[in-house]
């Protein structure tokens, strides 16, 4: 998973479609932002069908991570600075 492998991440969903992951974020997180494909989060350019939803829960960030052979994962990573940056993007 490239740099994702070095993160302390939790997999919330796997083997789901991108759209299912987006709906999960929208239905389960009061706080989320919509971004366009290519949006950079950590060192990753997000892949997906626009809009791409990113969930925020305190310092936790929930985002879709797509790889050609493994489909889309929904990852949860704790990062205070990145969560603050994303909240600033929304404003």
């Amino acid at each position, binding site marked *: 998973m490239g740099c994702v492998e070095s993160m302390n991440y939790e997999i919330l969903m796997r083997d789901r479609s991108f759209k299912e992951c987006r709906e999960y974020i929208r239905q389960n997180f009061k706080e989320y932002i919509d971004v*366009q494909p*290519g949006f950079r989060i950590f060192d990753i350019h997000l*892949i997906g*069908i*626009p809009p791409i939803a990113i969930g925020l829960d305190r310092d936790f960030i929930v985002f879709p991570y*797509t*790889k*050609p*052979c493994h489909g*889309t994962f929904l990852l949860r990573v704790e990062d205070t600075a990145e969560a603050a940056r994303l909240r600033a993007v929304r404003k």
Partner: protein
Amino acid sequence: MSDEPPPSIKSALLVLGCPQVPVQTSIALYLINKLKKSAIVPVVAGNKAANTLLVVADPDRHYLGEVMDLDRAVAQITGKKREFDRCFVFIHNDAGISYAATMGAISSAKIFALVYGEHYEALVKQIDFPCTIIAAKAVHNPLPLKKALDEVTPWAA
């Protein structure tokens, strides 16, 4: 220095999917040959396995030109460091749809969705973004997808 060709030269990016469906490598080489004959510079972007299948099949690079990591290609296009005239996205699963939509969003290239595999019809129904769809039920035999490509002639001006 950038490897990017001068603006007057047309270029095409081939975005490979997971190589688990055999026709991908065959069709990629076929498409590369057609593009080169039309003076379009092909660049391949895939994961390590997909790229290696091509590199091993063409050791003297009769067909292949530049081959790059898919994540790097996305980063370069998003960062406006690289652009292409055409972009062919190989699609046989949900991830392929996501990559095609991404290319349509980050790139100004004309997008061609090459849809194949056992469930190609269901995948075609999911494509709701602007692109030219080239689709066929092709898993082991590349000829149905080759035929679909030949009908569209995406290498033509």
